């Protein structure tokens, strides 16, 4: 079931299967290791990492919604130095590739993060989270205009020899414009989607439930939106797409694959079932056997053939 995530890169970033874990939902891969056979995963994407450690947002940070989860963690993380010092030596011993998710507040910060990760054993690739606020542009997300998204992409690609994935935000008017701009800027693959902006209100107290008022919605509630975005983006780019958003079962994952995703990421589902990614992998294998699919790439984008 091997898939290549970065055919445009010299090492190709070959994964033994298309099932990855989504950033922020699987820690550094170490936490779930006592109960999940992590070496069987296609890849692990670690928690979003910034240049300096970040404290994150005020409590409450979580709210359960209908088939969804709203979070406002605010990128709390230990910072890139600690990741390199404390986590990467552990990853270097693993068979499963680990991809470091990075987030910055300026183009320079993104490039600097990539520079830090250059040559670090145990790091197999970089996923660039462009859904964070750009402080110099008044807090607007980097991923919200094609120009800004392309600048970040080009800066990271220039700063690293590792395969680079850019993770797109759905909180934009036209995701295909952003996707095209990022692809043109030289990225090896795209992942989508990150969380959708959302909010819940406590009607008894008449206040927003989350400490930072709005947060990011994930889980099954966002799946049809994510599938549509993958489908649309697949029409305009010819680099691999990693589909993400609300995947809980193998059939969810297969929808993304047929919409055009070469690989998929499982996120929020881990909180319900820590073995979700491996259960999904088994389900995909069963589907392929049952449907006589020999190579997963046979069904990547299958849903496009009918239009």
């Amino acid at each position, binding site marked *: 079931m091997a898939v290549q995530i970065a055919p445009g890169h010299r090492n190709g970033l070959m994964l033994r299967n298309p099932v990855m874990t989504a950033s922020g939902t699987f820690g550094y891969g170490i*936490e779930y290791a006592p109960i999940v056979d992590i070496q069987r995963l296609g890849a692990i994407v670690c928690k979003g990492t910034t240049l300096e450690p970040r404290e994150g947002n005020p409590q409450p940070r979580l709210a359960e919604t209908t088939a969804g989860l709203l979070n406002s963690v605010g990128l709390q993380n230990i910072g890139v130095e600690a990741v390199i010092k404390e986590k990467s030596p552990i990853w270097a011993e693993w068979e499963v590739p680990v991809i470091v998710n990075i987030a910055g507040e300026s183009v320079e910060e993104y490039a600097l993060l990539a520079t830090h990760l250059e040559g670090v054993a145990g790091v197999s690739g970089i996923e660039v989270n462009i859904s964070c606020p750009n402080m110099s542009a008044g807090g607007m997300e980097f991923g919200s205009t094609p120009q800004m998204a392309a600048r970040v992409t080009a800066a990271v690609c220039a700063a690293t020899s590792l395969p680079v994935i850019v993770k797109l935000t759905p909180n934009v008017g036209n995701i295909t414009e952003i996707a095209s701009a990022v692809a043109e800027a030289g990225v090896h693959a795209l992942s989508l989607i990150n969380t959708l902006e959302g909010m819940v209100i406590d009607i008894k107290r008449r206040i927003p439930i989350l400490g930072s008022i709005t947060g990011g919605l994930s889980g*099954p509630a966002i799946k049809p939106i994510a599938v549509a975005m993958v489908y649309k983006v697949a029409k305009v780019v010819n680099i691999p797409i990693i589909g993400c958003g609300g995947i809980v079962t193998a059939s969810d994952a297969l929808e993304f694959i047929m919409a055009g995703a070469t690989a998929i990421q499982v996120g929020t589902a881990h*909180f319900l079932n820590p073995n979700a990614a491996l259960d999904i992998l088994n389900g995909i294998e069963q589907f392929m056997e049952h449907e006589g699919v020999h190579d997963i790439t046979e069904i990547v984008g299958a849903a496009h053939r009918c239009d």
Partner: protein
Amino acid sequence: MMQLIAPVISNKEVTPGMYLLWLHAPGLALQAEPGQFVMLRCGEGCEMLLRRPLSVHRAREGQIAFLFHKVGKGTEWLAQREEGDTLDLLGPLGNGFSVNPAAQHLLLIGGGMGIAPLVFLADKALERGADVTLLYGARAGECLYPEALLPSGINMVTITEDGLPGRSRSVVKKGRVTDITPQFFSQTDQVFACGPVPMYRTLVSQIKSLEKPLQVSLEIRMGCGVGVCYGCTIKTRLGLRQVCQDGPVFDINEIIWEEV
């Protein structure tokens, strides 16, 4: 930590709205320490995306018990489980109470549902021959945890806000548990508390002059329970802490109570 499917042995409403759930879970019962918690999957399919954390109320002979209050969707679903059903558990999680093996006199302070982890702590301490005093406060006599279920040998003082004893046969005082705590501090080696935040705030001011170690168990909304989501982070005097991993038990002086 383990993930397992556990059959329900019994699930009873012991006082109005308060449920005592016993499950068959030998591995978990063996590993669990007082103060630790378990994440229970609630609802069918993706009805509820987050597991619910419940502290271990008791563990013995391959069985594990949880005590919970029916307060929301998750606990409402749990309340309906009956013998023969199974539950998906993840645990034991968190640090648990840290009991000094030399401590002979333990003082436990429980407010409302805060009694849940303290009973397990009392079970274990009594087993090793320590003496245990439980100061237990509840909103009303009718909400009291059934006295008959408490471990034998425990010294208990009960206090209710309505001054009524409910079904309790002992003498019940009227007021809040923190009205009576100060008189007990001096004769104890270690103090453990579990209850609502206002109770902790009062305890902080009482304990200040005493320099007695006091551990409290915190309750917070959790996502994963294992330290991956950063949903449960709080600021403490020692820096950021994840309640699910670094807690739920903390030294009372470590918490910045103005921020909780």
